[in-house]
């Protein structure tokens, strides 16, 4: 079941706008801007990540790219999105220009972690390539791993836990997807 990033109501997987609140990318553009920002996969606008953590995270992001040849993991920290953090993440994944995204990766393979430092909130948003493979329950489990660290403002370590848990979930989902594909192929 797909959800609207704004009102969180269930929507059809092909809906061009939310039938409940009318939200769509054009509405998000009006709020956040039509011109997406140029950013790196590790985009620490709020300055939450210490330099020593940053090095480790960069290595982890590179490892993620190696393990999942179609995907990329991106982190955005900022402030001001407030309760619109999900809408912001939706807007960023579609409008953002990830300058260090490898050429062989599509933005549809991005998993984006958005953290709002002021609102003390975080969410995950993802591209269409894994649309069928991740659920809200998965993301809650993943984010929960980081909760204890973020409460103590150890953002870098929290993000590491998110990546580790996400990798485990994605490996399981990829295997399941291959199994289903093989069964479908045989049928």
């Amino acid at each position, binding site marked *: 079941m797909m959800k609207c990033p704004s009102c969180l109501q269930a929507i059809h997987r092909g809906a061009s706008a939310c039938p409940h609140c009318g939200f*769509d990318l054009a509405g998000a553009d009006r709020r956040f801007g039509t011109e997406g920002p140029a950013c790196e996969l590790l985009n620490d606008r709020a300055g939450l990540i210490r330099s020593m953590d940053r090095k480790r995270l960069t290595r982890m992001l590179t490892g993620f790219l190696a393990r999942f040849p179609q995907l990329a993991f991106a982190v955005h920290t900022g402030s001001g999105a407030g309760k619109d953090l999900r809408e912001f*993440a*939706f807007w960023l994944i579609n409008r953002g220009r990830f300058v260090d995204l490898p050429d062989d990766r599509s933005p549809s393979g*991005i998993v984006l972690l958005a953290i709002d430092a002021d609102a*003390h909130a*975080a969410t995950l948003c993802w591209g269409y390539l894994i649309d*069928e493979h991740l659920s809200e329950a998965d993301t809650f489990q993943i984010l*929960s791993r980081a909760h204890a660290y973020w409460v103590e403002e150890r953002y870098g370590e929290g993000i590491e836990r998110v990546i580790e848990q996400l990798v485990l979930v994605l490996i399981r989902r990829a295997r399941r997807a291959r199994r289903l594909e093989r069964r479908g192929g045989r049928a």
Partner: protein
Amino acid sequence: MRAFTLAGWIAMLAVPLVAQDDPTVPDKHLERYFGKKPDTFLVDPQGLLSGEQRREREQFLAYHSKDSEIDFQVLLFGEGQQVPGDVRVEELGERFYDDGKPCLLALYFLGEPERVRLILSPQIADVVSVAELARLRQQAVRAAEARTVAEEQLEDFCIQLAIGIFWIEREAGLGGGPDTAGPGEENPVVPPESKDRPAMAKRWKAWAAEWGVPAGVIGGGVLAAILLRWILRRRARHRFPDRLPTPRLGGEHGAGIGALIEFRSSTRSPTHQKGEPDDSLGGL
């Protein structure tokens, strides 16, 4: 019937007359056997061995004594003989060898090696376990039983037991060497715990000699398999089917929305902080 009854009575009366040779060791020899510490290595007051055989055994035991830190003495009894009940054999070690050189005393019944009794002197009684002594005895008895002639049985028994004593010496730390006490000098009493270590090491060496190579191969194989599996898993690449759904909400790349958690409170669980955050900037 009458004849049978009469014969039976005659037989009953005759038994004590025929069994005049009492199996108990004759009293006249008891002093020589059990009175005091034997002054020869072989004690045979009944003359069970011929002169030459006795000399040979005596020489062998004397030679052993010269070569070993533990003496080996033999009290020789006849086949079927019994030690009188009032002789407390188990106390002989204490009585005879309270001080001086350690000794292993064997009560050997000629022609019946399996009846042999071994007594350790107090100096080594603590450092030789019952199990070890039983094993030593068993080996010597087995060696004796391989022969059929009683005198030859005694010879092989003595040889095998002398070999066993050599190992006891080693385990008790009495092994001959320039620094160890010489014959006749007071021998050190080895504490029991120091005995366990060489025994353990010996068992471990024996195990390693027998199973070391197969165990190493199996262990190495398991480790290699674990390492290989770990490397393969690390290098595994995970792909998803390249199926892109119809874009929704106008988003070109994605519209998957996950959970949102807050991390304001360290006392509330993530579950209780799941949901909508406060609008810190009024939605701007």
